[in-house]
């Protein structure tokens, strides 16, 4: 028997997980054409930073979570400067060798993946060496809410609310602010944007920082409900990549819609038939979406819109 409240809570839970897992990846891929295979390790940085802030520095969790996001954003900016854009190594080589040694990785899919995959290996093993195979975890705040024979963790509902808030904030940032306008101008036509006085280098750097920050925030938010270990980023990878593929070209709308669709499928099937079938249903849905909506949900919407415009 399916309990309606169970189903609704399960949906919110899956939705939050998918949206939070995918948001950072979607922004960096959608805007910079860089596939960040170290996405899971950025989540790891956020999770470890917030957990260690609580256990070692005694900072309250509510403060430690944003710290996790900020630290990861800073690390993201560092990564962008050193590896993605190569600005730092090029600065050094300009002065010593009189030439650039690194070509920026923007829109170089395969190259960006190799570079970030290498980074992910370094981060995972580095974490293992520095902190061991596991660090002490935090307990989940807020306790349960009860309804009938059932109960559910309040924190998981808070996570859902936060994920919606983040989506709205990201949408606002990229569509309603001057920063967003410049960022979108950079994506659409880098040369023209430059000519109009947009510092495109800076745009890329900040976008990567924001994407990384979102990944770090995801890790920090989930830190109290998952196990702290060097490979914790892996558990987000499937959902995040599937969500980006199913979502399509529009970053925020795509993430929201794929979070909704995939979250609903995951919730219904895992509630009716168990976790295992839920997983299979999620992947089958992704397969079907790829076959029939090769440009993702938002690509399909755009096609519809175009067709309507043409027929008018």
């Amino acid at each position, binding site marked *: 028997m399916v*309990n309606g409240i*169970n189903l609704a*809570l*399960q949906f919110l*839970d899956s939705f939050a*997980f998918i949206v939070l897992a995918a948001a950072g990846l979607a922004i960096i*891929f*959608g*805007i910079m*054409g860089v*596939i960040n295979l170290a996405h899971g390790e950025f989540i790891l940085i956020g999770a470890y930073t917030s957990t260690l802030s609580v256990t070692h520095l005694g900072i309250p969790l509510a403060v430690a979570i944003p710290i996790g996001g900020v630290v990861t954003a800073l690390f993201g900016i560092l990564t962008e400067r050193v590896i993605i854009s190569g600005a730092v190594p090029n600065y050094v080589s300009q002065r010593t060798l009189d030439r650039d040694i690194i070509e920026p990785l923007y*829109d170089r*899919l*395969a190259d960006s*993946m*190799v570079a970030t*995959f290498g980074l992910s*290996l370094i981060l995972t*093993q580095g974490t293992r060496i520095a902190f*061991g195979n*596991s660090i*002490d*975890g935090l*307990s*989940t705040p*807020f*306790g*349960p809410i009860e309804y009938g*024979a*059932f*109960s*559910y*963790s*309040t*924190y*998981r509902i808070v996570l859902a609310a936060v994920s919606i808030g983040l989506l709205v904030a990201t949408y606002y940032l*990229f569509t309603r602010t001057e920063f967003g306008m410049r960022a*979108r101008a950079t*994506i*659409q036509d880098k040369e023209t944007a430059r000519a109009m006085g947009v510092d495109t280098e800076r745009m890329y750097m900040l976008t990567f920082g924001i994407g990384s920050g979102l990944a770090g925030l995801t890790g920090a938010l989930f830190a109290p*409900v*998952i*196990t702290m270990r060097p*490979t*914790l980023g892996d*558990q987000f990878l*499937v959902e995040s*990549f599937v969500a980006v*593929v199913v979502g399509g*070209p*529009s*970053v925020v*709308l795509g993430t929201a819609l794929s979070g909704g669709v995939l979250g609903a499928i995951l*919730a219904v099937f895992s509630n009716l038939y*168990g*976790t*295992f079938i839920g*997983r299979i249903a999620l992947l089958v849905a992704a397969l079907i979406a790829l076959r029939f909506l*090769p*440009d993702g949900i938002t690509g399909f919407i755009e096609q519809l819109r175009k067709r309507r415009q043409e027929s008018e």
Partner: protein
Amino acid sequence: MSRPSVSRRQFLGASGAALVAGLAGCSAGEGGTSTDTASSAETLKIGVLEDQSGNFALVGDPKAKASMLAIEEINANGGIDGMQIETFQRDPQSDNQRYQELTRTAINEENVDALWAGYSSATREAIRPIIDRNEQLYFYTTQYEGGVCDEFTFAVGPTARQQLGIVLPYLVEEFGPDIYTIAADYNFGQLSADWVKVLANENDANVLGEEFIPLSESSFGSTINRIQEADPDFVMSMLVGANHTSFYEQKASAGLDVPIGTSTAMAQGYEHRRLDAPAMANIYAGVNYMEEVPTDSNTGDGGFVDRYFEKYPDAPYLNEEAETNYFSTYMYKKAVEQAGTTEQPEVIDALESGIELGTEEAPEAPEGETIRLDGATHHVDHHMWIMRADEEHNVEAVENRQIPETFLSETAGCNLPENPEQTQYTPVDYYEEAE
């Protein structure tokens, strides 16, 4: 809102390629330390392949450390029959392909006299054909689903029947007959769940429901709801691995406070130390060993725990499998001394004569008790404990007794000295309720 200059097809193709590259990357590289030098007449060589990185590092690392501790102690006390032990130790990185390569190296190039290798059952099954083909004496030291009847393999960890066999009857007695099973969705979890059904039947209990959970899953919302809906007297949990550890935190925060019996939690991955209390409150682990087992030779002055942390001050925990690595090294020592040679067929004969260890070598056994290697099945009659964690995650022993491994000897009729074979028996072949 944006128009990426890269198509999603490219994204997909590239992601696929990266995944393949990632998998390939995992099997590359060399790790671990080694003290191997050329063999001489006064030495013998032991192979130790345990995971110190990758997925099973958390549980595999203490195994490697405990093996090295036993070897160091034996060498310091004059070795085995005057022979110093050399080691071939490598880190297979939780990768079965790497295990196969290193097993071949250990046998063919290093000529090890005995091999200890592997955490997971999948690893054991990946290397067992190589072991059997080369007639290599092999110790598998993880707790496992049971049933391996193999002339060259000594599966000296406790089996599911032994672990569940101590904890399940106790929980039926304490809390009632209605059981809900959650288990990892692979060989070990499926067979363990079958054992729960067999033991439930033997103890007049019934299994209300069972759910098998993929190893990659780390969200347990629907599982928790399902348990609440079934409303059992207790849950049997055979969850495995770091992703599944999240279950305990999540059930605590969801307010699920049903007692839980387990063969996998606490003793291997020390969840009661890593998770914040009270996530593991009211969890009963059926184990042969964990750091808190209150025998004198374990927690007493200069005991096993003291010696381990003296050698490894930064080690986080001394787990169940570590003790099995430790005592089985001494088991091997006794067998070589009895055989008077390191020739493997003769050492196997000596092991099959039934070696007994007291509390000094096997800290799981209390003062005056022993554990015994059953020569017919190559399994150990362990001294089993029920260890319970309270609200503050303090662990106490609530019951202990010796439990022989009866499935192979009595049910399946495994008798290796009489009838050498290389089989794994499963409960489904012998019990209706396991079907």
